[in-house]
């Protein structure tokens, strides 16, 4: 695999991972072109396309596109499942992952990816083993940070504007739905940007709207 990009329906890049040495300028150019190309494709189109001399494999989960560039001899279908396994890992770790989790905890998303893929190749396919590695790291972190406050809270300013009642779609839930009826069930509103204003997480990891 040469690189992996996560971007939103609005074309905002959420995560980028490069497995080939490229200059920042080239990376930006590739990202721009590819985001455009992929966003222009219709929902029922096939998940693979040829782009320059690479094969692009992409899949949409709720508001997020996961997009991988692989080389000529690489296997498209297994790449599609690499994407899915990564989403599952995120989902398991965050508990019903949604785009916001990836935005606010981008470093975690990178750590999980590094445990799963290294140098563009699958390192560990067992969900248990990957999460065990991340959990161990978290424990290590906790023991060293015993004095620090535990638990992520999204900023208080976020909680004041609780009027809007849209729960951002979770990625995996989306995958199940789109599979079931073969079509898109949820359209993400552009106003999704504001969803942060009513959404918070309490320490036991359950989600609720406040």
């Amino acid at each position, binding site marked *: 695999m040469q690189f992996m990009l996560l971007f939103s329906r609005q074309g905002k890049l959420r995560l980028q991972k490069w497995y080939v040495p490229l200059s920042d300028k080239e990376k930006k150019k590739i990202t721009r072109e590819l985001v455009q190309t992929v966003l222009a494709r219709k929902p029922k189109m096939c998940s693979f396309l040829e782009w320059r001399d690479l094969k692009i494999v992409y899949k949409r989960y709720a508001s997020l596109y996961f997009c991988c560039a692989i080389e000529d001899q690489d296997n498209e279908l*297994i790449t599609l499942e690499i994407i899915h*396994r990564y989403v599952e890992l995120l989902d398991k770790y965050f508990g019903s992952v949604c785009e916001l989790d990836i935005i606010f905890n981008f470093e975690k998303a990178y750590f999980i990816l590094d445990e799963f893929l290294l140098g563009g190749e699958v390192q*560990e*396919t067992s969900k248990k083993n990957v999460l065990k590695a991340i959990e161990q*790291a978290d424990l290590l972190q906790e023991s060293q940070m015993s004095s*620090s406050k535990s638990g*992520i809270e999204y900023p208080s300013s976020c909680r004041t504007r609780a009027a809007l009642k849209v729960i951002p779609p979770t990625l995996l839930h989306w995958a199940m739905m789109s599979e079931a009826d073969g079509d898109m069930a949820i359209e993400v509103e552009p106003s999704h940007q504001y969803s942060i204003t009513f959404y918070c997480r309490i320490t036991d*990891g359950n989600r609720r709207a406040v």
Partner: protein
Amino acid sequence: MPAVSKGDGMRGLAVFISDIRNCKSKEAEIKRINKELANIRSKFKGDKALDGYSKKKYVCKLLFIFLLGHDIDFGHMEAVNLLSSNRYTEKQIGYLFISVLVNSNSELIRLINNAIKNDLASRNPTFMGLALHCIANVCSREMAEAFAGEIPKILVAGDTMDSVKQSAALCLLRLYRTSPDLVPMGDWTSRVVHLLNDQHLGVVTAATSLITTLAQKNPEEFKTSVSLAVSRLSRIVTSASTDLQDYTYYFVPAPWLSVKLLRLLQCYPPPDPAVRGRLTECLETILNKAQEPPKSKKVQHSNAKNAVLFEAISLIIHHDSEPNLLVRACNQLGQFLQHRETNLRYLALESMCTLASSEFSHEAVKTHIETVINALKTERDVSVRQRAVDLLYAMCDRSNAQQIVAEMLNYLETADYSIREEIVLKVAILAEKYAVDYTWYVDTILNLIRIAGDYVSEEVWYRVIQIVINRDDVQGYAAKTVFEALQAPACHENLVKVGGYILGEFGNLIAGDPRSSPLIQFNLLHSKFHLCSVPTRALLLSTYIKFVNLFPEIKTTIQDVLRSDSQLKNADVELQQRAVEYLRLSTIASTDILATVLEEMPPFPERESSILAKLKKKKGPGTVTDLEEIKKERSSDMNGSAEPASVNASAVSTPSPSADLLGLGAAPLTNSAPPPSSSGSLLVDVFSDSASAVAPLAPGSDDNFARFVCKNNGVLFENQLLQIGLKSEFRQNLGRMFIFYGNKTSTQFLNFTPTVICSDDLQPSLNLQTKPVDPTVDGGAQVQQVVNIECVSDFMEAPILNIQFRYGGTFQNLSVKLPITLNKFFQPTEMSSQDFFQRWKQLSNPKQEVQNIFKAKHPMDAEITKAKIIGFGSALLEEVDPNPANFVGAGIIHTKTTQIGCLLRLEPNLQAQMYRLTLRTSKEAVSQRLCELLSEQF
């Protein structure tokens, strides 16, 4: 698992992120970011030492800002501090920052390397993991140098934890990909192969990737992996879906590992009979499983299962030896062609393309022709239709060519613009390749021009002309058909070109019919004249002069046209010149001379069409996608193959658009005339100004050439008219040279045609690609030309740059040597004194050493000498030679075919003002050439 709550919330970071998200406009966002950057900068610069937590928070913010797409130019030092910390959480963020924002600052890399070294030695698997991830993510040359020796040891050590082994394997893979020369093969390789037997499937997965990559380059060394991979694969495919626990993915046992093992096997030919039987069983099992009802309705199940299936089919195609398996694979793909999943249809089409080229399965693939044609008509996704076109192309043979070409032409009418050009190329090739009846070929190409004229590239219509000229059975038909096609009220300019050319040569064959009498032919062509671009008009003028010879009865009509102001005083110098010359020729030359000069074009030498050659070079016959490359090669290729047999050197490779097509233009007369005849001398009088052969090298060009051996930029040539500057860069066996042509006068240069010429000896070793430049260079202006360079194998000579242009009515022709020399493909290699002398001794065969003792031409300054050796491309090794006055260097010459290690030693003798230069490489010719080049420098 309430995972996210763990660890340390960085509140400030969350606030910052939500601030950014609340920004209503791009400007607001930038303002907020600048504020934050200023804040962080002041915190980093402040007197108060930051605690780890704050440092981490700020570094994280910087990272977030960078990921938003803004440039970050500070914070690296703080990140390095973090990654040297003992606190895991700080270390982790430090590593992340460095992995994402690599900086080539060598001071920094040294510090990072140091921290990595400590973590690798820590024996703490989590820390080791982080360090290995960082190496794999950054993977700079310096890191490779520092760790390439260490990581194989970690990988095969008995006490290394499984998870660390996995990281080490893939880290090593990355290092090998970026710096193969730094990863030495050794005892560890055999132990790595045995990781295929490891109990831990995660380790096997990682190791298989590593072995596959290594085996591609060193097949012998990893041969034993074949039988191990087969037995591993066999155990997986026969296991029950629950046997492998967490390595089973949606009821498919270890799909990732299976795919990787099948990939590994594709690095090798079919194995020995014993292993082969077992492998065949595996492949059959995989094919059988495809027929079983799915164990789950989830798409993940079918994707994983089919991923393995497609990889198995790839292996079957790669072996291309089991007809039974090939046919089964083909039938399986046939089922997928009609599957309701678009992804599967796409992959089936793609995979069948390669199956079509196997003799065992070609017929089986052909049975699906109707389905594929249907796909072309009904698929909603253009990328799927493209695959269908590819497959039709691949399955085409004599038996179905007419049908396939007809379907492709049909499709072309509605095809997406993005793939039209490719379809045109394919139709043109198929029509030519499978033409039994050349009238069908001519019809097809004319149809192509009619339907998609804009996408018919030059080589396509050049080719139809070549074929018509070479086959006299089709000439009359071609003339009749183009004549009819030209009757259409609006016809494409490409048709006018083909029509003009063919009627000019063979119009006489249809002139007997009163409906296509000479005058009618002429009027028909001339009615299109004013709508055409300059190159086409130039071509038509040549047709007219040909008509003068073919049809003396319309000579006066044609002369009138040539004489009209719009021709004789045409603003375009090319058209004007042709009109003047042709008019003069038709007036003064006798009929005999005219007949000789304007006789029918001689047959083109039979050689492979350049489009076809291009396609054949590609791996599969169905995978022509890189049109860019075709375009790139077009200028060089086409000119070569479209030249008439008796070509004069001056016409070779003239990429200027107004230059002549097929040699029927500016210098057509010198071209088609039998060279030393009585009429020849007359022509020279009439056209004394015509282009001469490539000029001899310009004076002083050798000196300039030598200066460029050790540098890449500068002025290559200068006289009172023209300055040629160079800027070039080389990496491994590739390079790119920018040539700047500056017009020093205040007058335009016309027909400015620079050409890069490789001698026959040089051509196979050096690939040069250039794009034509604008033929007009305004006074005081500069034009740029790019030369893409690929070194295929070592070479001696340098290519020649020939430049021809017109300046104020005089023809200028000059040549200089282009400084592309073997040493440009050097990559420096650092090594210790011990290593150096060990290798030096290994290269002791007298043929490998070349020595030269020579007098110094320049003052003997040690610093300048050092700079020159570095400029020459090799590494300058300090403290290697026992005599500090001597200079030693080492490097690797990269060519496409091989890499050649080079060692050099320069011993100055100040008293005698002499040098002794010794070169040792594994190849005599290379030693020789490098010694020649370097000796000139001191």
